[in-house]
């Protein structure tokens, strides 16, 4: 697994992609639908990496090595999940700055609080669940699974934003800023972490099962 991850980060994900994690700085925009900042990882980094990987014949290259097909999938899922976690972690300092400077709150969407990051993790988990098994069905078709993943994420982000901003009870519980709101928001964050892990694991299992039947 260590060797496969080494390959993922030396060949598949070009080191320059790590610079894209700085999209977390978009949280410094005053009043914005901040969920979008986390989408760049999907439609810029993952989209490009998978298309470039296909051009580089990554799947056949990796499958020719002495590795099990399911480990090949596992390494990719780990790498994707790691990128997503790094994106969340990189965004946290910018969220702190956002909260410190924009004390009046976000006029265009949810505030970047603990619950927000819980929802971001669900967004990534849902993307993994839709995109990865979609890709590993053929191991070369990227466009449709990518679009479907982004659509599912957009619908979820819109629904969360509408619910949190539109339902006063939810707004009070989940949209507040500051430590006083921790008791209401931490469960959402933890639920987000749990769902991210769960959805990603399901994504891995389905992807590995599908890839096993693919003829290369």
């Amino acid at each position, binding site marked *: 697994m260590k*060797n496969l991850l*080494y*390959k993922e980060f*030396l*060949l598949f994900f070009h080191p320059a992609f790590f610079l894209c994690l700085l999209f977390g700085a978009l949280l410094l925009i005053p009043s914005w639908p901040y969920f979008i900042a986390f989408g760049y990882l999907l439609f810029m980094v993952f989209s490009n990496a998978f298309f470039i990987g296909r051009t*580089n*014949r*990554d799947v*056949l*290259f990796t*499958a*020719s*090595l*002495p*590795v*099990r097909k399911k480990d090949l999938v596992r390494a990719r899922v780990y790498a994707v999940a790691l990128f997503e976690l790094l994106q969340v972690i990189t965004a946290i300092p910018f969220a702190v700055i956002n909260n410190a400077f924009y004390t009046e709150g976000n006029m265009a969407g949810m505030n970047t609080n603990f619950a927000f990051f819980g929802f971001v993790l669900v967004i990534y988990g849902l993307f993994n669940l839709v995109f990865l098994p979609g890709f590993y069905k053929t191991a070369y078709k990227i466009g449709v699974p990518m679009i479907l993943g982004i659509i599912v994420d957009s619908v979820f982000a819109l629904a969360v934003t509408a619910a949190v901003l539109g339902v006063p009870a939810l707004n009070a519980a989940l949209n507040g800023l500051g430590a006083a709101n921790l008791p209401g928001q931490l469960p959402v964050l933890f639920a987000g972490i749990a769902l991210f892990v769960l959805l990603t694991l399901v994504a891995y299992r389905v992807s590995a099962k599908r890839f096993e*039947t693919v*003829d*290369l």
Partner: protein
Amino acid sequence: MEILSVQGLSKTYDKFRMKDVSFTLDEGYIMGFIGRNGAGKTTALKTMLGLVHPDGGRVKVFDQEYRQNEIALKQQIGFMSGGVDFYPKQKLSVITRVIKRFYTGWDDSAYNGYLERFGLDESKKVEELSQGMKVKYGLALALSHKAKLLILDEPTSGLDPVSRDDLLELFQELIEDGKKSILFSTQITSDLDKCADYITYIRDGEILASTSKDDFIGAYKIVGGRAVQLTPELSARMVGCKKNAYGFSGLIKTQDLPAADGLEVSTPDIESIMIYFEKGCAQ
């Protein structure tokens, strides 16, 4: 010792069917795998290696079931489709750095030796290598992890005659120690004349012959004569033939050779056998 045994391998696609592919390869020999484009060479090789799922059949490598021991056996197999053509923008040093980690028997000094011998510069990108050098780089990788079975899909395709000859000589040199074997597919029959010990001929997904080169050539004769000598009986016996206003020539199994006088009989080369087989008897 049998290094590779393929028995009854089959695979069905919508528009192509590979049927009952069976052959064996002994240690220390080169087998040429021939067939025209689309005959099923690549499918057969990929199915053997588990990259394509077979519908039936079994593969044994070093006397072990391949499917059950795939990971361990891959340590001793070098597979290459054409030359190394993945990650073309990467330097050879980067590709090697990744690949060597997967092989327990990787030998750095052997690798450096092959780089020097093949004139490969590690600081070059894959795309900067000529087709011949891409094949040699692939061989350097395979030999550095001490692969004993080299399975090469059309390694000579796209090479100029000199590079091809150079590569075929290298193949022969590699098996000199009697411990390695090479199975390579090609559609260039002169490759086989030069270096193959055995020939496996695939046509429309079926193995027509898998035997030593001498037996393969010895099994057929070319007969020729005037148009009037082409009796219906002779025509029926021939595997393939060409006719014109002055006469005919055709391929016939040696055992079916008629005793009749007056026919010109000659020994075919591999190319003639393949052409007559593929074209059949045009009416």
